[in-house]
């Protein structure tokens, strides 16, 4: 319960009072990364976002000045103002061009709470970076605290976006860092959180439970498959999230309006994922990893090796389990499988890889140049090379994936 009527009123404009949930769209990428199509065509995209029924749109101050009129009306999305700027996407490695590469991570406050109120905003959003260095974290905390104080004075909700980035962040500690950072942000004064998914329902539930403020899961880089993006939201909702802030998965979608409509249907409980994707469902099969169910028994790796190579062991499996040390709590094993994202096919310049009509990746050895681009491109890191230096890729066991068949904990399931 909030002690500020201004904050209560504005949060209720963002979160639907009927279910306490919200679908927000982040449209602030021109402010920090680069002018890609979704930035250049922002007006057209935002018109579709509004038509799709989003509850809120996150944008920079300048965009709110130019396009704020799109949000006039009772049923229009609430405006969220991005009140800071940073250069993280231009540090390299991200999926943006590096026209002016930068060396040092910087973040600046660029708007005040009063500026956002003047724009008719329902909240401001700021970053809180953790993991880069102690000094940088302290600067982030200090800035967040100043925003929190300003927001208290004027009754404007503050949404903090904790981001675990930097050399101190690893695959092993990221969930723990996100959980801690969520609560730290609330202690400083966050009224809601915009936060990356921790990777599994169990740890995200822990994050939500400890935050005690509405948690909006963010989408991150655009998924190649819309269903994957929505599944992330579905898992977050099951963990207790209050909705989502999707950026590139909406603004770079082929049909932004449809994507928003799907998100609204999912978040507000009008449809399940299966209902949303029923019309597009084909007969091809795909695997889905449910890491929180994995107990690390390695049956999947064993049967994969046995099925393909007729030897007992795990070394030649086409999937792998990343195990967290037993002493780490909560224990977590991450399942790496081929998700048929087709990144390997796109990366293969000679065209040696292709997708069959049955949805199985196949290799034409005559075209393969052994360049290794497929393995580099694979986000799941499941491609390896045999003795002849040809890539070994999951073939779904010809349509009867043994890993899913043998996993009795449902950590690998067929979609």
């Amino acid at each position, binding site marked *: 319960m909030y002690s500020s009527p201004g904050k209560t009123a504005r949060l209720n404009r963002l979160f639907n009072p009927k279910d306490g949930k919200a679908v927000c769209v982040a449209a602030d990428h021109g402010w920090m990364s680069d002018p890609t199509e979704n930035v250049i065509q922002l007006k057209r995209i935002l018109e579709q976002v509004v038509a799709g029924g989003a509850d809120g749109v996150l944008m920079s101050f300048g965009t709110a000045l130019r396009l704020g009129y799109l949000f006039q009306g009772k049923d229009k999305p609430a405006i969220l103002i991005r009140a800071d700027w940073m250069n993280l996407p231009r540090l390299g490695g991200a999926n943006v061009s590096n026209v002016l590469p930068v060396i040092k991570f910087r973040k600046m406050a660029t708007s005040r709470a009063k500026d956002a109120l003047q724009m008719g905003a329902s909240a401001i959003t700021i970053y809180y970076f953790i993991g880069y260095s*102690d000094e940088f974290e302290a600067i982030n905390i*200090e800035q967040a605290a100043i925003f929190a104080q300003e927001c208290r004075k004027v009754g404007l909700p503050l949404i903090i976006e904790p981001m675990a980035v930097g050399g101190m962040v690893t695959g092993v500690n990221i969930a723990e860092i996100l959980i801690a950072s*969520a609560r730290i942000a609330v202690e400083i004064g966050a009224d809601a959180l915009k936060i990356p998914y921790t990777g599994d329902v169990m740890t995200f539930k822990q994050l939500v439970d400890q935050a005690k403020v509405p948690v909006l899961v963010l989408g991150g880089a655009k998924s190649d498959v819309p269903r994957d993006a929505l599944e992330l939201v579905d898992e977050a909702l099951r963990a207790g999230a209050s909705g989502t802030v999707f950026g590139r998965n909406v603004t770079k979608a082929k049909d932004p309006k449809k994507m928003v409509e799907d998100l609204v249907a999912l978040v507000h409980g009008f449809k399940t994922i299966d209902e949303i994707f029923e019309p597009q469902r084909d007969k091809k099969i795909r695997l889905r990893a449910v890491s929180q169910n994995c107990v690390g028994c390695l049956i999947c790796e064993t049967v994969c090796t046995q099925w393909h190579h007729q030897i007992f062991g795990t070394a030649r499996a086409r999937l792998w389990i990343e195990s967290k040390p037993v002493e780490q709590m909560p224990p977590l094993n991450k399942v790496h499988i081929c998700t048929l994202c087709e990144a390997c096919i796109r990366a293969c310049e000679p065209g040696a890889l292709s997708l069959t009509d049955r949805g199985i990746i196949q290799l034409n050895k005559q075209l393969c140049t052994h360049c290794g681009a497929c393995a580099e491109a694979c986000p799941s890191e499941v491609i390896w090379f045999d003795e002849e230096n040809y890539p070994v890729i999951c073939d779904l066991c010809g349509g009867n994936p043994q890993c899913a068949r043998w996993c009795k904990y449902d950590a690998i399931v067929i979609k």
Partner: protein
Amino acid sequence: MQTNIGKSIRINDILDSKSFLLDTTIASCLGATPQLEDLKSVLQTSVRIFDGIILNPGQMEHLALEVAGKNRAAPLIRVDWTNAYRDQDFCLPVQQVQRVEISSAEDVMILGGSAAVATLLMGFGDEFEAENIRSISRLLRDAYELSLPVFVDIRPIGSGVSTFNFEDVIKLGVSFMMEAGADALIIPDGAQETLKLIANWATVPVIIRSERLLKQDEAMAIFELGVKGILFNEKILEDPKGLIPSLKTMESVLPK
């Protein structure tokens, strides 16, 4: 004696001759420890037992209605954040100690706090100490204009502090903060002679920070030294079954 009537009224909302306080603010540094995961229920349990509860600004804002009302613990607002309490077991072990302000005197007033709590971290180097002193001095000036009491939490935990100089560092911190104009001092539970000296020397209320629940006679012994209060941290919440009976026992020794 406090000549600022506003400060005097607010301090007396928190402290009497034998007061118990609770500090819940470690979550701003470490995230929620198991005892603080559900702060709302912690407050609901303890708000009628303790005389004061230290909260971070964000939590005060969200849970103000839990502490509001007569005969309830007065809210004290922590105005700074530090990573100094992170150890090697934390997911991001501290490499360089930091301390920044997260609230101001005006902000504490807006939140309805009865006092501000600032931290004096000792033993972390000259530059760090100077910045800490500058920050607290500025807070004290701002707080004076608003009649807001400032409690200074003296924490001798840096690498420059050892078992040999621990007591002297506490005395040095007390000296600094008396000179700076603090309205109350929170000091670690040290040797009896040190506590007695400080309690007699300080012209402002002195509160002891205790890491554990105390037996009735232990608490009484501390108060007999002239100490005005005992501040407990989240560790006393570890056993939910034990907390309330223990606090009730301690409460029974107090002339309320």
